[in-house]
């Protein structure tokens, strides 16, 4: 089994009109069904939706000191909306989960394999 990161990508300005309450409810329901499926299948390791990029803080080394900055790392219009970490036998299995995810959240999903993950 290999661990994969399924990351949900949003592009600023691509948002159509903000979702109605009904649309929001349906989205949450689809996501709920998906996550239940992942858990039953033993694929689920961790995951969730993230707060907006405005809530982010970046910490880095600069001249031997730790520098703290307000805002997301990437200046780009694209940002991470959320992610899942799953266990899957191979890429085909991971892609199958990614297909269900993109169908549920209507956003592109990037699938990337982890290098060796240290066991707890």
């Amino acid at each position: 089994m290999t661990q994969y990161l399924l990351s949900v990508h949003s592009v600023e300005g691509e948002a159509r009109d903000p979702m109605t309450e009904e649309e929001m409810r349906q989205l949450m329901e689809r996501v709920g069904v998906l996550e239940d499926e992942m858990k039953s299948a033993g694929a689920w390791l961790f995951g969730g939706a993230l707060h907006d990029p405005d809530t982010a803080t970046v910490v880095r080394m600069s001249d031997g000191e730790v520098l703290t900055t307000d805002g997301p790392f990437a200046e780009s219009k694209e940002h991470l909306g959320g992610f899942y970490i799953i266990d899957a036998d191979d890429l085909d299995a991971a892609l199958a989960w990614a297909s269900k995810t993109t169908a549920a959240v209507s956003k592109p999903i990037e699938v990337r394999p982890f290098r060796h993950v240290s066991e707890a």
Partner: protein
Amino acid sequence: MAALIRVFGDIDVAEDALQEAFAVALLKWPSDGLPPNPGGWITTTARNRGIDRLRRESRGRQLLSEVTVLSPGNDDPGMPEEVGTVQDDRLRLIFTCCHPALSTDAQVALTLRLLGGLSTKEVARSFLVAEPTMAQRLARAKRKIKAARIPYRVPEGHELPDRLRPVLAVVYLVYNAGLTSPAEQGLSPEAIRLARILATLMPDEPEVAGLLALLLLTESRRASRTGPDGSLVLLGEQDRSRWDRTLIEEGQALVRRCLRRNQPGAYQLQAAINAVHADAETLEQTDWSQIVSLYDQLLAVAPTRVVALNRAIAIGEVRGAADALALVDELDLDNYHPFHATRADLLRRLGRNSEAAAAYKRAADMAPTDAERDFLRHGGRGRSIGPL
């Protein structure tokens, strides 16, 4: 035959080698004449072909160990990995090389390298790319297969239609690269070989048979496709006596079987169009109405501008150049040189000579091979570009 089995210790390899030797004989003997000892010639040729194949296959298996090999369902580390026949391994390999997670460039490069057994240098040359670039492309693809764990397996029934599409597309691309790349004419026979393997292993997939038929029928015209000076000879002017009748018969038999199945698809339809051409002793005797109706079906399953262009050419033969030109002018294919070549030919037939000349020039400026460029520079010598 037995001698070959003894040499190779493997009936499949021996059979394939013998079949290839006969194919070469049929190609060469009519023009080169019978060798003094035909039986011995066949055996020697077959043995050499078989050895080449084994060399490539052991290289293939060696190369395969560079990528991740997962045996699905084998949880017992003590049990030896179940090894399928040589053919099953090739099928797994081609589906792995053509996995949708890999770019088309990577799919083609891997297929040629791992299945075709071409060296990195040869693959680079076929696609007019520098060797280090191709080496990088291959390395990246292999890394991805390993790191992302692209599985080494034949897709299951329900996945097959989607997964088969890139495999057929890659084989078709490889064949065409052999047609147009002067350096790598060996690619076409290689593609046919791959198509044969696919057809043997997936006898229930009509599009696989369709692709094989298409390749065989196209290949049957190879000898007549270039003139003695290396120039391009179009379908209409080709010496049909030089068409390989064995390949044609095999291709047409496949097309007939596909028709009986009645599950048409793009490759089968293109094969059928070629089969109609192969039936005609001269261009004038071609059943163009049937070709038009086949193109109608092809356009329905593959609604591309190129298909529309080729359909228009056929319509030109049935309804005349004016109708054809009207259809062609509706297409936005400015960057495609056969578009301009077709317009040029139609304009010429309508007596609009200065427009025709301009269109020929446009086409010649864009033509990818010297043969095509020369052909177009000389005013197309009278026929529009369709199947070659």
